[in-house]
């Protein structure tokens, strides 16, 4: 007996050592927590901010990519001529002011002087011209909204934009936050390959330091940053880097981000799974930030297959219970909003509820009637969806149930995101797909209404409305047309169904940082560590 024990004694020693080490670790954690609780909350400069971001951006060039990760990081490095305030008003940033000519064909931008790029060079008209003209070619969205346009240099601090016909909302597009019109040095723009610039040099309060793929992206305070003298207001106003570094750590797994923010490894974590909302909200050292992410949408294929039949599309829209779909997709009712505006409620300038009597009808009988009137003959319709975005998949599951209740046979085609983006361009490969659309600054930029976009809403009346909005003499006239157009979309054409608005949430440690705000993405300037 004792002999056997002896043989095991070293094993026991190892185990003991291991457990001592583990206990050591746990006590270290508790002492850390104590520190944070007792720390005072005065604004402190310096320190590193650790942010867990949910996806690795494909590039940091915001002009090229429409991905959220690119936008979230790039907005700290690059700036635009104009920015949007939280109520979607256009505000100056790198341009001090803008004049619009009588005929609406010429915009003159007066640049702020003394703004320096991170490489030390002063920003002048030639940089702006090079950047803006590249943006007009690489961003289809910009080209769509502005039409044919050209920036030219007038003098060192003045540039001019000439467009072909008067257009509504030119400045809103220049100020928009997705695939934004970042100003970069001319030399870098000229050498930029198609897939994005290779040198990350902007004018923002933070400068790019290092990118370790799949690990982190580091940006550091830019000492020569020259802020505008105005009250900070979302993206607008004075910006100041209050920390030395921001480490954007790429953590693709939701529960890992949650774990990290819970244990204090990060001060901010993006996109926490919605089921954990209560856990964060009820915690004393963490706070959730709810933010409007976009509209959950089912897009129909109007080029090929059963949904070319308008009646069938109407039947689906009439029969489904939008609320059930949203609950299935997002769970907690804090994460969705039943609303039929194709522009969002928060965008006061464009929002309308026109056509709301056709939204969320949940009228199975009427739907069956419409189905009978349609040419649908019992074939299986394929809904394309992905598990890479959990809401897309979850809502598809509920939609399938809802549609089957009306009498439409549904098959889910679950693929990964990369496959979905390719597959949806092939009209023979799908009948409907599910995605989310983030807010755009103009109704004419609404992607699923673009005839070239997957789903192909090629419709004369739709085209007419779009053209009327574009060339409307005033914003007010444009708005009136938009109201009509939205009504038409819900009542008759139904090119897609906006199921509802949805929110996602980020979490931050409220005892450790302050000053962080949110507008179409996190804003981490004017944000400081409190200990």
């Amino acid at each position, binding site marked *: 007996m004792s002999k056997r024990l002896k043989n095991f004694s070293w094993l026991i020693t190892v185990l003991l050592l291991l457990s001592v080490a583990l206990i050591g*670790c746990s006590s270290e954690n508790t002492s850390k927590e104590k520190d944070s609780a007792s720390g005072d909350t005065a604004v402190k400069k310096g320190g590193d901010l650790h942010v867990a971001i949910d996806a690795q951006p*494909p590039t940091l060039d915001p002009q090229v990519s429409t991905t959220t990760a690119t936008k979230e990081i790039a907005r700290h490095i690059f700036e635009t001529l104009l920015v949007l305030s939280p109520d979607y008003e256009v505000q100056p940033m790198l341009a001090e002011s803008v004049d619009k000519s009588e005929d609406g064909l010429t915009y003159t931008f007066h640049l702020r002087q003394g703004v320096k790029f991170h490489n030390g060079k002063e920003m002048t008209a030639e940089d702006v011209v090079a950047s803006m003209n590249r943006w007009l070619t690489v961003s289809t969205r910009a080209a769509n909204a502005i039409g044919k346009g050209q920036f030219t240099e007038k003098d060192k601090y003045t540039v001019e934009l000439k467009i072909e016909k008067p257009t509504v909302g030119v400045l809103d597009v220049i100020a928009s936050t*997705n695939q934004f019109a970042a100003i970069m040095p001319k030399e870098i723009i000229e050498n930029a390959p198609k897939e994005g610039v290779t040198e990350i040099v902007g004018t923002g309060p933070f400068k790019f330091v290092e990118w370790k793929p799949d690990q982190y992206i580091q940006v550091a305070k830019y000492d020569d940053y020259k802020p505008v003298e105005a009250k900070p207001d979302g993206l607008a106003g004075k910006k100041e880097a209050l920390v030395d570094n921001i480490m954007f750590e790429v*953590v693709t797994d939701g529960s890992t981000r949650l774990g990290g923010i*819970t244990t204090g*490894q990060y001060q901010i974590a993006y996109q926490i799974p919605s089921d954990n909302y209560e856990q964060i909200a009820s915690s004393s050292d963490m706070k959730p930030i709810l933010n409007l992410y976009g509209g959950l949408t089912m897009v129909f294929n109007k080029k090929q297959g059963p949904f070319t039949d308008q009646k069938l599309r109407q039947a689906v829209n009439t029969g489904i219970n939008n609320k059930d779909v949203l609950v299935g997709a997002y769970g907690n009712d804090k994460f969705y909003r039943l609303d039929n505006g194709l522009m969002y409620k928060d965008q006061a300038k464009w929002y309308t509820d026109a056509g709301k009597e056709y939204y969320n009808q949940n009228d199975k009988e009427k739907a069956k009637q419409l189905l009978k009137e349609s040419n649908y003959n019992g074939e299986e319709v394929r809904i394309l969806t992905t598990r890479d975005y959990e809401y897309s998949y979850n809502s598809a599951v509920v939609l399938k149930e809802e549609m089957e209740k009306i009498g439409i046979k549904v098959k889910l085609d679950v693929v990964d995101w*990369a496959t979905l983006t390719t597959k949806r361009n092939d009209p023979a490969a799908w009948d409907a797909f599910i995605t989310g659309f983030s807010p755009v600054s103009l109704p004419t930029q609404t992607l699923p209404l673009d005839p*070239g976009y997957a789903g192909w809403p090629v419709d004369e009346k739709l085209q007419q409305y779009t053209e009327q909005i574009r060339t409307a003499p005033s914003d007010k006239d444009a708005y009136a047309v938009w109201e009509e157009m939205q009504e038409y979309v819900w009542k008759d054409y139904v090119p897609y169904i906006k199921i509802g608005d949805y929110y996602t949430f980020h979490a931050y440690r409220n005892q450790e940082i302050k000053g962080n705000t949110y507008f179409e993405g996190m804003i981490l300037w004017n944000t400081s560590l409190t200990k």
Partner: protein
Amino acid sequence: MKSYILKRILSLIPVLLIVSIVVFMIIHLTPGDPASVMLGPEASQEDVEQLKNHLGLNDPVYQQYFHWVEGVFQGDLGDSFFMDKPVTAAIIEHLGPTISLAILSQITAILIALPLGIFAARKRGTVTDQTFMGISLLGISIPHFLFGLFLIIILAINLRWLPVAGYRPLSAGLWEHIKYLIMPAIALGTGQAALIARMTRSSMVETLNLNFIKTARAKGLHERKVIYKHTLRNAFIPILTVIGQTFGTLVAGAAVTETVFNIPGIGQLIINSVERRDYMVIQGTVLMVTVTYVLINLIVDLLYGVIDPRVRLKKES
């Protein structure tokens, strides 16, 4: 010996050729492309097409293949579409975490396996032995990633002893580094431990039955000396083989476990690259993994000869 090594290395060539063709074929049969992933969900079709042309993705597949192979022979695995750096650099960056994890797992495995295996061998045929065999099978039967999930629930969520997941490089401090790797190392290590322990046991049992051990015992040598000095040494070759093989699997086979613990290693690199359709990285990494895998096996075979001169290197195609 030299000609043997040469032959083994030469036999690598057809294997690698097949691997590269298979990978290339799979990749290009896969729907989706890097351009649309890069440009994001709301990019237009024209922009995607333009970028595809620019990246050469619309060239015929065989042309892309030959272009790539040509580069490989010059030691160039191409550039990542996503990371704005050569594939070799990306691999090196992701190799660190994987190797750290593999070493820690292997240490865990050996620490568990050797004593248990030896113990079971000495108790062969008893109830203890059978229990041990049952437990070791349990070790093989639990998928690593599942064990990892269980560890997370217990050690990280309930007890809060360890961070849920993540990775800190060695430069952040040794303890900081190891703290993040403990759970994945246990998850991977126990499965390997079961394999090594079983091999240790059976190899020990076989050696214990050999005549020279019986002689040693008859001469009245101390039991411990018999076990550790004579038996273990002679039983070590098969044990070493298993250790080598399991190490090979750890380098790339830990992909799912790396995902569970969010460790930016080789396995994750491949999974992420498949998701993003980063063709060059997939091709390059798989090639690298294959070479490592085969080389480790070669080294293990060669070590045979060093440890036990009785083993002559012969035949086996």
